[in-house]
């Protein structure tokens, strides 16, 4: 279902897309990136109503955006353009309401929406099984758990929609709180049924209690101790104000702990990962884009920094950064059967 673009290429694209909203609040870049993500999203082959998650992400995006805008307006009382004032006696929200905070809230909402639609695109384009397949053998148990967790929400939503449609077909009308049990009880029983099916499926695939205990990795204990040392080092580094080394140590601790706690699974593949021209195109453009976004800023000013406080200025726009974002539209051009 992933067309001509394989999961690795999509993963690269997704990582590249989410870096910018996390590092910049330049509204021009965020707007362009949002357009790019939407272009890629709507270029994907049409899915069935049950699996197409765009409405869900649109709802979540809209909700988070409204929350972000409202939160900024009510809690940030800084800026040169005051449009209203709440009584100063009100805790937290009391004070000047500024256009600066409103604009910052809109920009933040745009960043959140971009990440959400990028996630929707990634979810739609890539099968979870392909993602689990990408993981090394030692992380397969973690991958299975993550895969089940990733599937949980969409499956529950799909089940909820089925129940709602079925009840309506029977003539039931949802009017208020009293009608909730008519929806919740079948949803729970469906969930339990699905859990039983899942456990049986896992059992038959050798993940259950009756499975042969997997041999612990040879250096499991060493890896666990190393992970603990990394955690202590991370805490010390962060406590002393060295955030970057601290985060790197924390990341290392996570990786070591994962490897240390995972069993070894010998895996065979019937179908090797296919690197089609589309996959190569998307991977190459993503790599170029991520290089520009991460490294070109140290050579030239890409105008990623932008703030609406204390006054609203017009944002900068570097053509080089714009080109990097344009490269991310490559999945729209790629052939997807």
């Amino acid at each position, binding site marked *: 279902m992933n067309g001509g673009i394989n999961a690795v290429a999509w993963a690269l694209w997704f990582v590249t897309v989410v870096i910018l909203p996390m590092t910049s609040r330049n509204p021009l870049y965020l707007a362009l990136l949002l*357009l790019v993500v939407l*272009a890629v999203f709507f*270029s994907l082959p049409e899915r069935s109503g049950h699996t197409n998650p765009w409405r869900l992400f649109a709802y979540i995006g809209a909700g988070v955006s409204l929350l972000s805008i409202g939160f900024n307006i009510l809690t940030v009382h800084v800026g040169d353009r005051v449009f209203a004032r709440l009584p100063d006696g009100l805790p937290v929200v009391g004070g000047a309401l500024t256009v600066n905070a409103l604009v910052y809230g809109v920009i933040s909402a745009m960043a959140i929406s971009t990440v959400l639609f990028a996630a929707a695109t990634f979810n739609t384009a890539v099968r979870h099984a392909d993602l689990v397949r990408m993981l090394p053998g030692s992380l397969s148990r973690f991958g299975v758990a993550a895969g089940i967790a990733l599937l949980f929400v969409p499956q529950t939503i799909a089940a909820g929609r089925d129940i709602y449609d079925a009840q309506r077909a029977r003539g039931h009308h949802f009017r208020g709180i009293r009608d909730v049990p008519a929806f919740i009880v079948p949803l729970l029983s469906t969930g339990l049924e699905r859990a039983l099916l899942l456990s049986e499926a896992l059992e038959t695939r050798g993940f259950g209690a009756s499975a042969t205990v997997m041999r612990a990795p040879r250096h499991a204990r060493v890896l666990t101790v190393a992970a603990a040392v990394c955690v202590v080092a991370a805490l010390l580094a962060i406590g002393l104000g060295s955030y970057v080394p601290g985060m790197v140590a924390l990341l290392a601790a996570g990786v070591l702990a994962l490897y240390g706690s995972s069993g070894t699974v010998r895996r065979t593949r019937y179908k090797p990962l296919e690197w089609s021209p589309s996959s190569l195109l998307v991977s190459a453009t993503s790599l170029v884009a991520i290089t520009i976004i991460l490294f070109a800023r140290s050579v030239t000013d890409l105008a990623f920094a932008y703030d609406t*406080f*204390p*006054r609203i200025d017009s944002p900068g726009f570097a053509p080089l950064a714009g080109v990097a974002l344009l490269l991310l*539209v490559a999945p729209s051009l790629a052939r997807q059967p």
Partner: protein
Amino acid sequence: MHLSLRHHALRLAASVLLLVLAIVTTIPAASAVEPDAPPITIAIEWLQTQQAADGSFSAFGDEGDPGTTADVVIALVAAGIDPARVTTGDGSSPIDYLSANAGGVTGDPGLAGKVAMALSAAGSDPRDVNGTDLIAAITDGRDSDTGFFGQGAGTHAYALLALAAAGADPDVAALDALLAAQIEDGSWGFTGATTPGTGDSNTTALAIQALVAHDAGDTAVDAGIEYLSSLQDEHGAIAYDASEAPDLAGDANSTALAIQAFIAAGEDASSMIAALESFQNPGGAFFWRADFAEDSLLATAQTLPALLEVTLPLGQARTKVAGLVVRQGDGSLIYQAVEFEEPSIDGIELLTRSGLDVSMAPFGGLGGAVCSIEGEGCPSDDCFCQSYSNPAFFWHYYVLEDGEWVEYPAGASSRTLADGDIDGWSWTADKHGLPAVTLEELAAGSVTPVAAEPDEENSGSTYLTFAGMAALVLVIGGFGFMRSRRKPV
């Protein structure tokens, strides 16, 4: 019974007296004394009682002494008193005495220098003192072998100070002679000999002030200050020389001259000023040293200018300059070079003297808080109005140290700016954004004020590029959408 009661009463009175004395002696002295503060007032009152009938003052014997009289004139001028009005019963003032005896000092360029300096300070012309040209007497008294005016570095320093007071520039050789007389430990000796160990604090302090007055020998001045610092005793006073080291015993005259040298060089002399005040007797006079606690006319006359933080030569206002860089929220930069006459000013003074529109508010023990500069910031009644949420904006205060801006940890009123220092203010919630500048650039006006960080480069073609890219994305997205919805044939 009566005896016992009286005995107790006496013991109680003695205890109370001791307690009062203890409290009085432990009260810390103020570092800067105002001219009308009691220690100065009573010292001047005491000085006036020492005037002879001919208007003179004498530290040694009964006969009038031009040197001591010149010292008193300098002290009176420093305290803002016109010496011509300090007269005896028959109307003679110290100026009258010096004028009448100017002819007698022409043979000694050092003494002529001291008298000329005093007369210049009092507003008289040293080139025509009852027909005597004291400046000519100084320059004519040049020793062709040593290059000194007079017989040594001490007289030479006084002569140079007198020339500075009269606005006369000595030739380079005269300043070179003084620089060449510096001993390797940074000191100068009265005779001008450069043998190690012969230097003294008095000649060194005079030499430093002479060099500063002629804007020469920065390195030599620094070395001289180092030498003076090495002579500070445990109470903060300065000893005459290092001969009694390590048991140094400071004296009033040496401490006073050292204070003047420190102030002239832009150094902090507050600890020495506090020590100097301890040399005052209850009657107002100062004594030379703890083991010679008698009232001393010379000590009193030489101490007063130092307590008033006045340097030699009087009347030569040496302008000092401090720099100021202000960065506003939009990135615009304001550069100022502020001139001042005092030895130092604080950060708030620098800001207010810059002529910028500044509003402030009291900030507890830290002095004043700066609320707004040039209209940017907060009102005085809510000085940190934009700092209560994230991002927190307020005026951050920085000082330029070794070319790097460092945020100052205390209030601007706690900061002491000497000649050449530079302060910075930035309206920011994050980085200061202040550029590194030099005072020479500020004073020369070679740094151009930067206007608001500019929208010019973000207009026109920039946004056209953005619009073009956005349109391209829409076209590609539309193409992708149409292709994905096309039914297979």
